[in-house]
């Protein structure tokens, strides 16, 4: 079985788990491959993940906000799923009381 080759931008590569440490400023994304996790280095995290920068490691974290497709952070959604309304970084089937979607958008404003 040919070990996965590390993507460019990798600073520390491992035969079975891909990249363990990326070059500065790049994000590491852990992709699942059967029972293994394969490290990949990216300049930006894919849709459905958000980047968390730290001095020692930048990491792509899964966006776990309900009904959200893309996140700014652990608790702020930047893009809700089709047909849902966004308000203060959360996704709703309809705008909360006192708010309404402006001229055809899906964003609730007061």
């Amino acid at each position, binding site marked *: 079985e040919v070990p996965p080759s590390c*993507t*460019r931008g990798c600073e520390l590569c491992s035969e079975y788990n891909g990249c363990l440490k990326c070059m500065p400023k790049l994000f590491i994304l852990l992709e699942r491959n059967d029972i293994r996790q394969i490290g990949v*280095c990216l*300049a*930006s995290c894919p849709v459905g993940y958000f980047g968390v920068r*730290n001095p020692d490691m930048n990491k792509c974290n899964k966006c776990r906000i309900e009904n959200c497709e893309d996140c*700014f952070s652990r608790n*702020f959604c930047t893009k809700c799923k089709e047909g849902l309304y966004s308000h*203060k970084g959360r996704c709703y089937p309809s705008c909360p009381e006192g708010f309404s979607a402006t001229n055809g958008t899906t964003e609730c404003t007061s």
Partner: protein
Amino acid sequence: MPQTWLLFPLLLAVAAPRGAQGSGLRHGGCPSGCRCEEDGARVRVDCSDLGLTALPANLSVRLAGNGLSHIHTGAFSGLEGLRVLMLQNNQLQQIPCEALQNLRNLQSFRLDANRIHSIPPGCFHSLVSLRHLWLDDNALTEVPIQALGELSSLQAVTLALNKICHIPDHAFATLSSLVVLHLHHNNIHSLGEKAFDGLWSLETLDLSYNNLVEFPVPIKALTNLKELGFHSNSIRSIPEKAFVGNPLLQMIFFYDNPIQIVGKSAFQHLPELRMLSLNGAAEVLEFPDLTGTKSLESLTITEARISSLPGSLCDQLPKLQALDLSYNLIQHLPSFSRCRTIQKIDLHHNAIQEVRAGTFQGLMELRALDLSWNRVQSVEPHAFADLPVLSKLDLSSNLLSSLPAAGLRGLTHLKLAGNDGLRELISAEDFPKLRVMEMPYAFQCCAFVGCERSQDPWYAEESEGHDLEDLLLELEEDFTSKQSVQCSPAPGPFRPCYHL
């Protein structure tokens, strides 16, 4: 239908390539339905004959991970419909302010991981729709107040991983729609008293990994704050009524600070707070007054010098599930019986002297109780009688001479080591579910690990008269039921059971 060519005259000065994608231009996906072709330094985006009545909704330009150090003024001309612009992981020292002038529909702008040291006023003047802005991992030495001030629609911004050392008054005064503000990993050592005024909508503030020495008092202006982080700073005290202005707080992260003093009323009136953890506050002598903080589920106050607990503890914390007051100086325990949802109590390393009948009575959810390393001399007969799901009890290193078994039939883990005066036999019938035991003496394990026959030669001649088959059956039965119990200290040749 006029042809919609989106010329993309990217006449860009490309510095030495770095990072994953190396040289050359790598930019984002083609808008849905359009056809994109690279033509040298240009990119031709052909969206003609698609029946479009407006520009593609999610038009985005992704230039992340190149070596861009300069962007031409007209780089994005004709792209008024641009929604997402990703310039992160480049070499920009200045923001291409002129190139942004027509981007009135831009909603997400990534500039993180560049070398930006300042942002001139007016730079973001036309970005009236901007919601999300990434400026983290740059070289900013101060908050770009005037530039940010023009972003009235901004909802989320990160200025993390820069070199900001002070937040002046009114730094974000016009950002009334801002919901998330990340300032972690800077060098912030001081805050203007009105630093956070105007942030009416702010729900998340992260000040972690800075050099703050004082508690961030200016947070009192953040009436909608739900999550606050100021861990990993150099803060020594939390004042009285510290969060009086933040009644909606759900999470506060302040670990890794040398906090010694905490005002008794510091954590009052936080009805949404779920978890509170304070470790090593050596000058905290009293249990905090948690009036109005009624949703707390987990409370940890360790390595302080609390010597007594209020009788009203459970009335203040009716939803408590986990309580950890280890490493304090507590001598007497109030009744926990009104802490009806509590599942775990850690009181080890205190000075508790007795366990009364009413102390833990009626705790229907209590699973684990750790009273090790105290001075418990007596446990009243029915102290554990009414704890139907208690499975772990640790009374090791105390002064016990006996243990009432009432109510402990469900135990799987029982630890009594270090009670030198406890020499009585523990009956296996009283503890049918035990799996792990730590006893003061080896012989107390004999009832649980069947050491008489299988290991001790002294008993060899006694078993000869038995029919071999019976013996094997008996051994097998003994082996299966007792072998699953791990009991220490395990009896052996030098610790025989024979003197039972």
